[in-house]
Structure formats: C-alpha cells, structure tokens
C-alpha cells in the first residue's frame, strides 16, 4: 500500500506545481499564431487601400477598408483567364486521374489477371526510377503537348502511389459482391463501374483531394510546357508576377472605373494570392481529414 500511496502523493504534488502543461500549451498557441498570422496578414493587406498599405503599420485589421484590389483583379482579363484554366485543369485533370487510376488499380488487383506480376513490377519500378526533367520534357514536346491544354491531363493521369492506395481500399470490399455480379453475367468493367466505384467514395475523396490540390497549386507545368499566357493557370500567372517581377503588367488594361489611387500592383498581387488560396481554405476541413488517412495508408503500404 505504501508505495502506491507514495506515488499518488507525488503525482498530485507534481500536477500542482508542474509548470510544463502551461508552458507547452502556450508554445502550441504560439505555433498556431506563427502559422496563421502570415496568411491573415495577406488577407488584411489585400482588403486595405493600396496606396495607404504602402505606408506600413498595418498588422491586425485593414486601416482603410477597400475591395478595389479585388474589383481590379476580377476585371483583369489575364487573371480571369488564368483562374478559368486553373478550374479546368483541377476539375478535368482530377476526374480523369481518378477514373483512370482507379480502373487500372482494380484491374491490377485481380489475381486472375494474366500477366499481373509483370504489370505490378513494371509499376513498382516507376516509384524508384524516372527519366528526369529533360527526357520528360522531350517526350512531352514530341507528343505535341507544348502549348496544348491536354498537357494538364495526360502526363498526370496516372500515379502508381495512388494505385497502391486504391488497391488497399479495394481489398476491403467483400469478394462476394463481385462474385454474385459475375454470376449475373456482368463483365469486369461493369463490376468496376456499378459495384466498386459506388462503394469507393472515401478513397475517391482522398485521391481527389491529393490530386485536386496538386493541380490547383502546381505552377511548374505552366512554366515549362506552356508559353502562351492565355493557357497558364493562376499559379503560373502568379509565379510570373511574383518571381519575375512582372507585377506592373497587372496594372495594364485596367478599366477606368477602378480608382487608380486605391490599387497598387502590390495590392492586386496580394488580392490574387488570397483569391488563389481561397479554394484550398474552403475545402480544408474535408481535405485534412481525408489527407491524413491517405498519407497513413500510403506510408504503411509504400
């Protein structure tokens, strides 16, 4: 009895005088603050009068509230076009990737598939080796995908890591469902479309978010394979504005209705950045739930 009592007393003493939980909690809040503040700051500046923002001293809230930067952005033909391209590649690119990768994953999973071992080995090799930047570039060029919208679809249509995540999920679907469908004379494609796909919402959501976020954020395909400004997604557009200092371009072709004093190239840049991030933040609650699941499945299997 005595040792147990002893530890109990020790514990309660510890809890009373122990500063650790408080310090730890404060540190965690600090980390959250450091994570959120830069994002919040950008939002604040984007909603502040452009000229006034140049004076500095704005930290928590817009000093002179203004939505002129957003109006300027949404009346700018180039930026609007870039948003349309982003939406196109995110929706179409994600949809084709999902259906194609899921279909191949299902086929590669069937033990009766003749040549299954070879298929899987060929796939596994792609996880460890790749041709690198230049040979890939030459391939895409030879396929005629330069300055072609299809460059957003084909090269990213399949991914062996995602195939593995799909397969991990498909394995959990009871075999009896497929067997009874096969008895009814349904072929493999029919089973995949009518039985497997409707049951796969969670894994579809996971991969859709992976691929969707990648499509939305990716700017490299736009840099390397697309020269025409009208075909570039908003991420690439921002890259050109930010890294190549072309922000003055944003001030060109602005309609007369926008007050020139309220808008600077800096403030339109901020507004475009915030607008380009908004869809991500919007889906974030779903995102993080499914992403964590996908990440863990991927890391266990991979």
């Amino acid at each position, binding site marked *: 009895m005595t040792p147990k009592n002893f530890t109990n007393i020790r514990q309660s003493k510890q809890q009373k005088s122990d500063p650790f*939980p408080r310090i730890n909690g404060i540190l*965690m809040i600090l980390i959250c603050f450091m994570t959120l503040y830069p994002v919040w700051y950008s939002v604040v500046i984007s909603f502040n009068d452009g000229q006034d923002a140049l004076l500095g001293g704005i930290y928590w809230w817009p000093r002179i509230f203004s939505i002129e930067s957003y109006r300027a952005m949404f009346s700018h033909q180039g930026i609007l076009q870039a948003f349309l391209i982003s939406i196109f590649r995110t929706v179409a690119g994600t949809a084709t990737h999902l259906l194609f990768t899921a*279909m191949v994953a299902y086929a590669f999973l069937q033990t009766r598939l003749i040549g299954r071992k070879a298929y899987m080995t060929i796939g596994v090799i*792609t996880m460890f080796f790749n041709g*690198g930047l*230049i040979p890939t570039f*030459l*391939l895409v060029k030879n396929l005629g995908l330069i300055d072609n919208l299809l460059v957003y679809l084909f090269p990213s249509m399949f991914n062996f890591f995602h195939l593995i995540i799909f397969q991990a999920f498909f394995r959990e679907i009871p075999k009896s469902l497929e067997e009874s469908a096969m008895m009814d004379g349904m072929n493999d494609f029919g089973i995949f479309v009518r039985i497997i796909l409707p049951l796969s919402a969670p894994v579809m959501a996971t991969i859709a978010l992976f691929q969707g976020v990648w499509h939305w*954020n990716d700017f490299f395909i736009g840099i390397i394979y697309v020269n025409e400004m009208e075909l570039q997604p908003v991420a690439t557009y921002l890259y050109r504005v930010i890294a190549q200092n072309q922000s003055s371009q944003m001030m060109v072709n602005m309609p007369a209705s926008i007050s020139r004093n309220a808008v600077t190239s800096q403030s339109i840049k901020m507004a475009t950045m915030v607008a380009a991030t908004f869809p991500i933040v919007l889906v974030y609650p779903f995102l993080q739930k499914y992403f964590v699941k996908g*990440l863990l499945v991927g890391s266990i299997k991979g």
Partner: protein
Amino acid sequence: MKDKKSSISSHSLSRQKALQAMALPGLLWMLIFNYIPMYGVIIAFKEFRIFHTINGAPWVGFIHFQEIFRDADFFAAMKNTLGMSVLKLTIGFPLPIIFALMLNEIRSRGFKRWVQTISYLPHFLSWVVLGGIMITWFSENGFVNELLLRMGIISNPIAFLGQPQGFWLLAVLSETWKEMGWGAIIYLAAISGIAPELYEAAVVDGANRFQKMWYITLPSIAGTITILLILAISGILNTNFEQMLVLNNPLNHEASNVIDLYVYRIGIRGLRFSYSTAVGLFKAIIALVLLLGANGLSKKVQGRSLF
C-alpha cells in the same frame, strides 16, 4: 476450378478481355510516360541537339560526365544544395518529432485537434503564394524590416532575399514552417500505437514526464524515425525545386542556385539537353548510393532498414 488451372491458355485470355482492356491502358501509360523518359536518359551519353531524334543522335561516351568535374557552376550548385540539405537535416528533421512529442502531452483532445489542424494548413498552400508572402515580408520596406527597425535591432533596412547572406537559413526555416505540422502526423500516428501499459508501468516506477518521453515514446517510434531519416539522407541532393524557383533571383543566385535549378536553367532555357541530362543522372546515381549506404548502415547499427 477448371478455369484457374488452365489460366495460361489463350482460351482464358479471351475470357478476360474486359479485364485486360482495363489493365492495358495503365501499362501503355507507364510505358509512354515513365519508360520512354527512362530510355531517353541515354542522351546523357550522346550529343543530342533539338533537331535530332533520341536514337539518331551520335554517341559521345562519357564526355558530358567528364565535363561535370570541370564545371565550376556545378560545384557551386552542389555546395548550395548540400548546405541547405544539411541545415534541413539539423533543423527541419528533428522539429516535427519534437512538435509531435509536445503535442502528445496536450491533455485536452479538442485543443490538440485544433493545434494539429492549424499546424498543417501551410502544407496545402502553394509555394507561389508562400514565396509571394515571403518576398513581401522580407523586402526592404516589408513587414520584417519594419518590425526590426521599430524594435531598434537594426538601423538600416536589409534586403533579406536580395543578398546571398542568410539565404540558406531563410529557405530552410520557411520550408520547416510549411512542413513541420504535416511531418508530425506520421510520428503522432506512431505514438498513438504505443501500448498504454508501458506508460502505466513507468509511472509505477516513478518515471516523470521527460523520462517517459525518453525511455518509452522515443524508443517506440525509433523505427519510424529511422525510416524517415534514411529517406531524408537519400534525398540530400533534392531541394525543394518549387521553393527555389520562387525565391531565386539574380541578387541571391550565388546562394540559391541548386542542382535542380541548374539542370532546369541549362537544359530547358540553355537547350544543353545532353549535358543537363548527364548532370541529372549523376545526381540520381549519388542519391541511389546514399540511399543504399544509409540503408545498409542502419541495418548494421540498428537492425532496422527500409528494404
């Protein structure tokens, strides 16, 4: 039963037409988009010009690889790559582990979930946006200078991203900021798998919080740490290409020109396809050696390895 036994015959192949029709497009995609570029690596041993086909270009042997060793720009890029990678290993690798350990000590589940959710938000933001924020914050009339001037730490504004000094640290810290919360997920999952009996036994033995961390939590997740460390070491010649693309500018180029960026510059912009492919291949070979080396070392020392 009969079906399974005769699975190699052409009869059964014709019976799985639909299945093969679903599998073959995947094979075809991999052959085109993975294997043709892998084959294309042979241009590292050729003198490939834009008007050549890959097979038609003349062989030149190891000329490009010999050139790498005489290329001062390559060594400068190598130095920047290694410098940032070593910094990343010392700062960016342990921080997610420490963060996971600290987060694990939070009692309130709701608070814990909030902190975690917020901590991996930056992972989902594009480097273009974060780079844009950084360029604004660290510019001469940006937020950081404003703060430092006001606090009297500096008397003249510093163009942080407009100079090579301090670029490595800035790049590594910003990447750590972006990925710390995300990196902690895998450790938190490993921690949650530890049997609670271990902690109960330790409490009976009078272990305090830090002793429990040191003697139970850390050894229990050592396997996960080892695997991620092996991967990190094999990736030592990889830099965050997107980050470098955004943050690199002529003024900090001396410190920000990394191998990936160098390959991109001389290959895509400079059209030196063969030479840049050779540099890329050289880098990939070093990475493979590092991976096998780290894996072998860990097998010997710890008895744990990736494969």
